[in-house]
């Protein structure tokens, strides 16, 4: 089967439109970033994190941070680490196994320093161990 030049052109045009449309769609409806897609800017102990935050809190805004710390309270949708880091949980994370006083390692997105309650706020938090 051989295609005429004109038909080849139409076929090529159609393929281009399909590819273009598909990539447009992919671009417009791309998935939300998960915590693993966000750049990790800190990994370590909660006390070190609090010192770093004091120096330059804007640096960590919107970045992923991985923190080891002590659970100081358990709240409706999240936990407090070392009293001043509030970690709001990812919708899929359950708090059932956690106890106050326990050492945990979490990963979350820093959303900012909350000057009303004087604490650091994270969301999309997952518990690593």
């Amino acid at each position, binding site marked *: 089967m051989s295609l005429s030049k004109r038909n080849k052109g139409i076929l090529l045009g159609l393929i281009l439109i399909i590819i273009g449309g598909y990539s447009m769609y992919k*671009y*417009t*409806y*791309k*998935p*939300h*970033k998960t915590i693993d897609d966000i750049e990790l800017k800190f990994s370590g102990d909660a006390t070190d994190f609090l010192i770093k935050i004091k120096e330059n809190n*804007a640096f960590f*805004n*919107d970045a992923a941070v991985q923190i080891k710390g002590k659970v100081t309270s358990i*709240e*409706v*949708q*999240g936990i407090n680490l070392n009293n001043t880091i*509030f970690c*709001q949980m990812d919708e899929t994370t359950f708090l059932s196994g956690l106890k106050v006083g326990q050492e945990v390692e979490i990963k979350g997105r820093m*959303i*900012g320093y*909350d*000057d*009303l*309650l004087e604490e650091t*706020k994270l*969301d999309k938090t997952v518990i690593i161990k």
Partner: protein
Amino acid sequence: MVSKKIILSILLVSFCTSMQAQKYFTKTGITNFKASVDAFEPVAATSNSTTAIVNIADGSIAALLFMKSFHFEVALMEEHFNENYMDSDKFPKGTFRGYIVGFNFPDLSETEKEYTINGTLNIRGIDKEVEAIAKIKLVNGTISLISDFSVTPQDFEIKIPNIVRKKISEQINITLEYEFIEKK
């Protein structure tokens, strides 16, 4: 002399603790906004990590929310919201400070009551006076507050490009649902 000092310090301590107990707060308040035009894709987002504090002694209320905590259904819309419209890196916060007019804590009950809230909303570093009607009730020691009000993009000098002007409504409706618990 010494006893005077002791009495004074006891008074001071009890005063401080009573001050503490007069505050109710939430860290996970829900704030929605909607700027949709019918027939087009919804332009709406929710933040479920709004911090808000009510001082029950005088009815003053303060709220703070991070722009980047707004979640849109479409990820690209969220990106555009933060980068092109809100400049979230430059102005990460939206704040509100105001008063619940005629607030008297003992008046609260399980039946909803309507109050007016007056205050200043600050977005992108620009202040705007707002007035909103709020429904407030007290259930099992939790103050629940539901309110809504509208603003316009011009209020905060948010420029909307011509190409999308038809898809974004002129009035942006903001709704709030906060559940305050006592701060200990």
